[in-house]
């Protein structure tokens, strides 16, 4: 590896399409979220620069650390690292399909789970009963929704027969979007449910539950720590829908029309998530668990069976 390659990979990771790009777009999506919510609630909502002002302010605040703060400091960094790497892999592969590696899909699934794990670490090490209970809730939730999420990914794997991101794109170029098949459609529905929970959106914001746990794992965070968690969450709110769109909703070619179509699909997914978020009450932990381990898991399993049958 020479210097220019090193520089390039640092650039990819930190600026484009990694940290900075994803964070900026992701934060802007949180504005879209707040704006749409405001419209549904008959009000005006925040100005477009709001999320950036929030983050800027948080960086300017003082931060106090609890004693033995290793986990407490480590968690937000882990969250941002996870989502940055996920963003790099997804976007980089999209830009240049040839560079994908075998198993990148599996790596991606793991990376997308990192922010949730970071939340658990942060909550558990924050020494507050709210953080502890929030971490506990997040732990149960992670197991439940990851199971569903994996099932939906497995459907894609079975249909495509490969664990390479590039192959999935190539497959959809040949056979049309996966979501148009029966099993693919079922898997898409399951995946939508699961990313709603992965992003901590209502009705699944059980671990943070501002009105019950006053923010759960985030209750003790302030300043930079809180800002990093917010950024990680914002990045995920871009990467997750992109991941779903790429996985289920057809290929993306380097043409303008195809790119526009991709953006449109992405917007539909994001807006759907936001509307669902704005019109639901929070579920109880036991209700959410029985939903994921029950209905979602069963539907997901049916999808897998259908995929095996080739439907």
């Amino acid at each position: 590896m020479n210097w220019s390659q090193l520089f390039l990979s640092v650039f990819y990771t930190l600026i484009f399409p990694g940290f900075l790009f994803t964070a900026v777009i992701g934060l802007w999506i949180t504005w879209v979220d707040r704006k749409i919510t405001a419209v549904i609630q008959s009000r005006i909502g925040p100005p477009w620069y709001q999320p950036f002002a929030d983050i800027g302010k948080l960086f300017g605040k003082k931060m106090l650390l609890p004693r033995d703060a290793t986990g407490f400091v480590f968690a937000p960094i882990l969250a941002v690292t996870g989502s940055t790497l996920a963003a790099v892999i997804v976007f980089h592969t999209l830009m240049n399909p040839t560079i994908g590696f075998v198993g990148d899909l599996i790596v991606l699934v793991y990376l997308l789970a990192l922010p949730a794990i970071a939340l658990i670490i942060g909550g558990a090490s924050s020494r507050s009963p709210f953080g502890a209970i929030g971490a506990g809730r997040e732990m149960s939730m992670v197991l439940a929704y990851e199971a569903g999420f994996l099932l939906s990914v497995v459907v894609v794997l079975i249909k495509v027969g490969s664990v390479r991101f590039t192959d999935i794109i190539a497959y959809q170029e040949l056979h049309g979007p996966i979501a148009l098949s029966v099993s693919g459609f079922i898997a898409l529905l399951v995946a939508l449910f699961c990313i709603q929970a992965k992003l901590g959106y209502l009705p699944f914001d059980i671990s943070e539950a501002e009105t019950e746990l006053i923010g759960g794992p985030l209750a003790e965070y302030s300043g930079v720590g809180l800002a990093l968690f917010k950024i990680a969450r914002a990045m995920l709110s871009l990467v997750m829908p992109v991941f779903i769109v790429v996985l289920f909703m057809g290929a993306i070619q380097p043409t303008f029309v195809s790119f526009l179509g991709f953006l449109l699909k992405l917007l539909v997914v994001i807006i759907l998530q936001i509307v669902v978020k704005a019109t639901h009450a929070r579920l109880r932990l036991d209700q959410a668990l029985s939903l994921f381990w029950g209905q979602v898991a069963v539907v997901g399993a049916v999808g897998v069976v259908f995929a095996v049958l080739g439907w």
Partner: protein
Amino acid sequence: MTNTLFNWCFKKSIWVYHVNAGSCNGCDIEILDVLTPYYDVERFGIRLVHTPRHADALLVTGPVTRQVRERLLRLYEATHDPKLVIAVGSCATCGGIWHDSYATLGGLSTVLPVNIYIPGCPPRPEAILYGVAEALGLVPKKVTEQVFVEA
């Protein structure tokens, strides 16, 4: 430069934590009202947060009862700098109708340093909006001390 940037961000993104220090609920309800569609304080980037850790401003209502004093001080400490303390309502401003009762301390200024007072019983949502905007230096002060002496 960084400082100006932080200052700008701070003014555009005040997260408030609402503390009821023995108020009658009137001011608290009006504070909530400021969030709701007709007044929509989110236009100014102001959000209600649920833990003092996330807060930039403490919105305190009530005359500060004797029982609540100690907790109020702890909350103040749990809120990280830079922070604003805003006294909402006549009770928090000067102790209100029960300023000299045995059970109250007669206003927020006896316990915490206050940045701005928003009198009213309860202050209408517009008055709260105005007060917060005034604390951020967006609108001018409209009242001054009046002294009249017979010539």
